[in-house]
């Protein structure tokens, strides 16, 4: 982010995160990821590459999965942001989170929140995706531990579809 000229007051930006409104006095070019992690202490959204290549930092912006690492805060003004913390809680889990737990669809878990976000965006516009739809929806999310098939099965399960293990 560019440093603000010291004599100019920082602009105010209003964003809604997980249903809560925040008025932030920060440089408008500040990445949304920085705001989430360092200002709002929502650490579930992760830094991976800083250039929208890996999906670790995905959040929902008005229902779309977007990289928060290269989205400036000015671009989110007045919009609704949902992070993994906003999807669900251990007490009230999102059906995707339930399915990921049931299917143990993670290893290290670093990419998991971004994957959950992509999956949530998919299910909101396509409640009954085919496997190919899931592959397409998650193709911007990288996972290095190799949990892809568990993830796909968990999403099918969350969508209420049978998710048989490969015969």
């Amino acid at each position, binding site marked *: *982010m*560019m*440093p*603000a000229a010291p004599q100019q007051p920082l602009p105010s930006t209003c964003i809604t995160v997980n249903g809560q409104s925040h008025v932030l006095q920060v440089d408008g070019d*500040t*990445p949304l990821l*920085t705001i989430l*992690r*360092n200002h709002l*202490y*929502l*650490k*579930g*959204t*992760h*830094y*991976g*590459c*800083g*250039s929208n*290549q*890996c999906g*670790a930092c995905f959040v929902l912006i008005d229902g779309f999965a977007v990289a928060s690492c290269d989205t400036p805060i000015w671009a989110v003004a007045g919009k609704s942001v949902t*992070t993994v*913390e906003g999807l*669900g*809680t*251990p007490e009230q*889990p999102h059906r995707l*989170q339930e399915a*990921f*737990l049931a299917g*143990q669809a*993670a*290893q*290290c*878990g*670093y*990419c*998991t*929140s971004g994957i*959950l976000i992509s999956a949530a965006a998919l299910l909101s516009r396509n409640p009954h995706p085919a496997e190919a739809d*899931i*592959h*397409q929806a998650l*193709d911007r*999310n*990288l*996972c*290095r*531990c*190799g*949990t*892809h*098939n*568990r*993830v796909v099965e968990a999403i099918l399960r969350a969508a209420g579809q049978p998710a048989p*293990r*490969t*015969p």
Partner: protein
Amino acid sequence: MNQGFALPAPAQPGQLPGNLRGNPHLGQWLRITPEGKVMVSPGKVEIGQGILTALAQIVAEELEVGLNQITMVAANTGFSPNESVTSGSLSVQDSGRALQQVCAEVRAIYLAKAATHLGEPVASLQICNGLISGPSGAQTSYWDLADDALLDTDATGRVPPKPNTVYRKVGTSARRLDLPDKIFGKTRFIHDMELPGMLHGRMLRPNAPGATLLSLDDAAALACNGVISVVRDGSLLAIVATGNDEAEHAAAKLSAGAVWSQPNESLPDEQDFASWLRSEPADTSVTASPPSPASSSRTIKAQYAKPFLAHASIAPSCALAVYDGAILKVWSHSQGIFNLRSDLALAFAMEPEKIIVQHVEGAGCYGHNPADDVAFDAAWLARHTPGRPVRVQWSRADELAWAPFGPAMAIDLEADLDAAGTITGWRHSIWSNGHTSRPGRGSSPALLGAWHLATPFERSPAINPPLAGGGGAERNAIPGYEFPNWQVTSHRILNMPLRTSALRSLGAMANIFAVETFIDDLARAANTDPVEWRLRYLHDERARAVIALALEKSGWPQQNLIEGKGAGFAYARYKNSGAYCAVVAEIDAAEQIYARRLTIAVDVGLAINPDGVRNQIEGGAIQATSWALKEAVRFDRTRVTSTDWESYPILRFSEVPKISVHIVPSDHPPLGAGECSIGPVVAAIGNAVFDALHIRIRQLPITAERIMSELAQQP
């Protein structure tokens, strides 16, 4: 890596098993609290493989407590047993066996105390979820009797653990203890840690390996918002700022003001690294079978190659450190916190006791990644800002370009055949840098930053672990088949222009790829089915069982009637002493190669957590598919050019094969699961490509370009 979830046979009475030998004090391994918790503190660390859950299952089994009554405490050099490095698929053997014995003894100690307390004989007492009850109905519990003094004693090795025939918790697919936090986005990773007054450091690496900092104009960087200082020692350079973004922004300014020398050494030709490997000075070692008389009528030869590979973890490495003028505390996702402490002590001329390294989970770890390097960076900066914690997170580009790589390898295979086509001699030659340069094992710190100081520490070339422990470059080069007259020659390249160290399965991947694809060619030359050919030289029943299972589950042999489709088989026993694995790969050859289905059969001994084993096998197979088809570190003659996910692509969701894992039920001792599928998957894909296209690709990765170039060379 540390991914085998199975328990070995108990040690002899009086003998301490696993890592209990070096760390016999019971209280160092666990505590029982009056609040109803068993606090377990192994020296092994969670690197995404689920080891803490497997160890908790072992504790739950032996102590007769619930998993929800156990708290796994992350390792800390101040109080945890020194269990060295979490690597090599050894944690269940080393740590699991130790904890099993610790818990057997703790149970006996508490039962004796309970017997006195209840006035009932030990043999009559029962334990359930930590409650201890006698035949009269009188009850007490671990928690009622909790007393640290009871465990202030060394293990004796004279209390037998439970026989595995009565296991109720070990052998079940318990859910991972750490996954809820990760699925609900709770603060769990080192990247999420915040310490009061924390500053942020950003490293500015040389513009090429071997370049040194000639001059520096830091005025523009120092003028940036939030910048506290520019720290320099020789060619080691960093910005310290109040925030991570501020540090990153100022680092770009600092970069513009830094003038670097030309590197003192050029990098090899990326397109012809195999010739470079074969021409370099090397330390050569030969391992051979006893000679037996044989006459051969012909020799078949082939050459193979594997490029440098990156760890490519999804998170850049991160560490925090604080120095109060006397004690240096470091938070790290290192695989070996004690080894890291040793090298930090060397680098800063401190007594190891003045350094505390606390493990905090990072992203997935597949070998010696920059976790230790970034811990040095944070510690170095913390020593420049006493009293204020410093957090350092590497950039994505540095994470890809400055981490140690899995070494490139060139391999020659030669098979002598008699007139009947039987193998009479086998030679396997390898050219490669060493496969480990981990910290804590030498007289000079194996930490990147320490090599860039004004008075630099010497960088030692990577070595190969001893063959007895599985070897490095030679891992799985000694034939797993019953060949007479074999010889393995390993040329360890001494120059290391690209830094190399341990990456999942070390040399085994390339060796198994070479051997298993060569064997398919030998079988074809002999007009023999490739699986039958292997079985002639393989009489280990467990090997034959996994092969039979993989064939049965995959429906092998498939009739390949559809153009562009192929199936391939491969088998190996990891390290020749570890898990058995057989794979059938099915691929589509279209504009590129797509792995569509992998059928994998394994024998990993008794599995503590079968779903954990399955998860590790699947993960290894997907990483191996990515290595087989996509990955190679790119570089020009000056620097590494794989600096982001476009220049170092890995397998994506749309490219991932379907995988079925079939575990042979077993009561055999433990065999790690995380690495055994790697080599067979890569080789089976290679054989499937041949089946589809009748083209033998002997250099990884198997890309469309390589296939086209091979086609062009065919008559």
